[in-house]
């Protein structure tokens, strides 16, 4: 992270902390907001949080690592969540996950080298009646099979090239 963006990051944390009531009860909501705005919990953010709240960075890190929602590396542009709920499991969710891993060339919890996709496994998205399901950036794909994986990925890869073209 360059010095400039680091300072920017600290300013964002300051803004977030100011928006919540003081007190220990706000720690998790603050961490959630930092992740929502910055995509992940960076060491810089934890240091800024320590200066602003007095909760030590190690303490906050200890809390954050307890919960699966928090991530500590920069996520990809598109977040793929594969449901690992019971209904998805018995209807072949694991095979869908493996196909995604193969197609993307990464394992669960990783981000593709081009920064396009990160792959996560979640406990249950609550769409059990439509299992197995995969969510990309919050959009849920129902009745997934390994065969449908390339089509779903193409939707987002196409988007990426399109927006790159527009930026030019």
């Amino acid at each position, binding site marked *: 992270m360059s010095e400039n963006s680091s300072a920017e990051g600290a300013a964002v944390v300051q803004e977030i902390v100011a928006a919540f009531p003081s*007190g*220990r*009860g*706000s*720690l*998790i*909501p603050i*961490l*959630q907001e930092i992740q929502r705005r910055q995509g992940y919990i960076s060491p810089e953010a934890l240091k800024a949080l320590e200066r602003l709240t007095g909760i030590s960075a190690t303490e906050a890190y*200890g*809390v954050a690592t*307890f*919960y*699966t*929602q*928090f991530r500590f590396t920069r996520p990809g542009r598109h977040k793929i969540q594969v449901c*690992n*709920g*019971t*209904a*998805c*499991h*018995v*209807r072949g969710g694991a*095979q869908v996950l*493996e*196909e995604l891993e*193969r197609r993307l060339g990464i394992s669960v919890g990783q981000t593709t080298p081009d920064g396009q996709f990160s792959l996560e496994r*979640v*406990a*249950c*998205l*609550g*769409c*059990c*009646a*439509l*299992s197995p*399901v995969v969510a990309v950036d*919050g959009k*849920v*794909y*129902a009745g997934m*099979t*390994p*065969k449908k994986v390339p089509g779903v990925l193409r939707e987002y890869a196409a988007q990426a090239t399109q927006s790159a073209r527009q930026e030019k």
Partner: protein
Amino acid sequence: MDGLNIRRRMAEERWSALMSGAESVFFVGAATCGMAAGAEAVIDRLERDIARYGLNARVIRAGCLGPCCFEPIMIVRRQGLPECCYGPVDADAAGSILERHVMGGELCPEWSLGVMTAEGYGDIPSFWDHPMMRGQVRRVLVNCGVIDPEDPDHYLARGGYLGLERALGMTPEAVIEEVLASGLRGRGGAGFPTGKKWQFARAAEGSPKYLICNADEGDPGAFMNRSLLEGDPHAVLEGMLIAGYAIGASEGYIYCRAEYPLAIRRLERAIEQMRELGVLGERILGTDFSFDLHIKQGAGAFVCGEETALIASIEGLRGMPRPKPPFPAQRGLWGKPTVIQNVETLGNLPHILRNGAAWFAEVGTPQSRGTKTFALAGKVARTGLIEVPLGTPLRQIVMEIGGGMVSGKAPKAVQTGGPSGGCIPAEKFDLPVDYESLGAAGSIMGSGGMIVLDEDSCMVDIARYFLTFTQQESCGKCVPCRIGTRAMLQLLENISKGQGRPEDLRQLEEIAETVKMGSLCGLGQTAPNPVLTTLRYFRNEYEEHIEKSQCAAFACRKLVWYRIDPDRCKGCGVCLRVCPAEAIEGEKGEPHRIIDEKCIHCGTCVTACPPSSAAIYRESGDLKRIEARRQLASTVS
């Protein structure tokens, strides 16, 4: 209370205009499940066509009606015709229905699930007579799918906040009496009598007191709470007000998992609306009762469904449980008396207060009164959210409401209660679904997840799946749970790889009992249930895995071998190209062959093989045995 009554009269007028006016209405199921099935495309098409034809009609984004398997689903209302429920509909079907039903004035039987009246209409039967709906009693879910969850007038017009009004006219003690008399038990799983919990909290010293709504629906395979929060958020919030009043709380928290963004959005909106209605804040409806609400988002930890862990999480700590007593009703959030209730328990309260304890107790069994919602999923033909009287036999739920197996095969078991529950075998399907019967069968009611398993499900795999989950989610605070779940999982993994030993089963049972007895909280105390019930009812499957390295359901991957039938294989080479392990060989146009030593058992070749050939099949068992069997077969022939 006059302000609310005036508002209710206005709401009733708006509602009756909506129900009988000249404007046509499309209620589209737009809960998370509906959106996943493609409701957005249906809504887009309807809105475009309404504008294109200049129709006096509108689209309402409703919650989930329940039969998720027929989504996208919509109810169409037009003057002069009975309301009709259609599903599944895609954008084109929605366009046709708009033209024929709304513009042409005729029902469309080909997409119809039934008319919403009690009687049928011509050839079209009533929706309530649909095999999935017959046998259901909709109380908690009464508004889901048939109102706009973001319009408080819809809730008000259908009796919303009448329960609160009645409660505020009673003493808190009388409210507790009413709930005690109803026999309502906690719907989160343990089934503790709600009224009793309130008596403890009311009597406890300390101020302020807190009420927490546990919406951390963490059981994989369960979505009852999500549906209710998305489809009828005000009902849950009204329940919180009633509970808060009864125990003397002034503040409430809703602890909702972050994986439910739509539910959170609906709750936030509903809370704003409650302030406008005057049912939240200082001196609610002109009484001395003041109450405020906050939403806390869970951050992804299954153990936070446990009361004391949930409290720790709200306090900004690692979500670890602590020993009880003291119970939260005595010392809970910030050390103050706290009552924690499940979403569905709260959703029952407005009905109990509005209609009385006797009405509530009309359905159910003497020990388990009222209804229960279940998330019916897995291998069953009709999946979705259902609500049935407690005591309904499992068979009715699986075979009638669920319509049997989607595969047409025989059902094998039902898994209830998620990672804390167990598997009930098909021969016990006459079991009534109530707290005691499920407990006696070794499972639990749980919060309402119901995963149906058929012959293609392996019970060792199911046990391994749940243990993987509980082992990962074990917070690590107490030894029996931390070490015990790991040890059980290791044994199960060995068995599912064909490396189990006969003595492993006894060892599994021993560890399971220790974990059950010795764990600190409910997570550990119930974690062995999936193992114990499958060992109790499906021991033969464990033995097959151990003695023959065989998984008859082809679910334990390391025990599955793929074969190419040389008579069917056309040598197209598709499987060879997709095989990630380069374990397939063969010349173009000649039958291919799989090299077992290289095979990683992924099954990609089966999916890739063109249906016209369907040349790849599976075998399970010890390779030597399979080979011996094959040679025997060829000698015989």
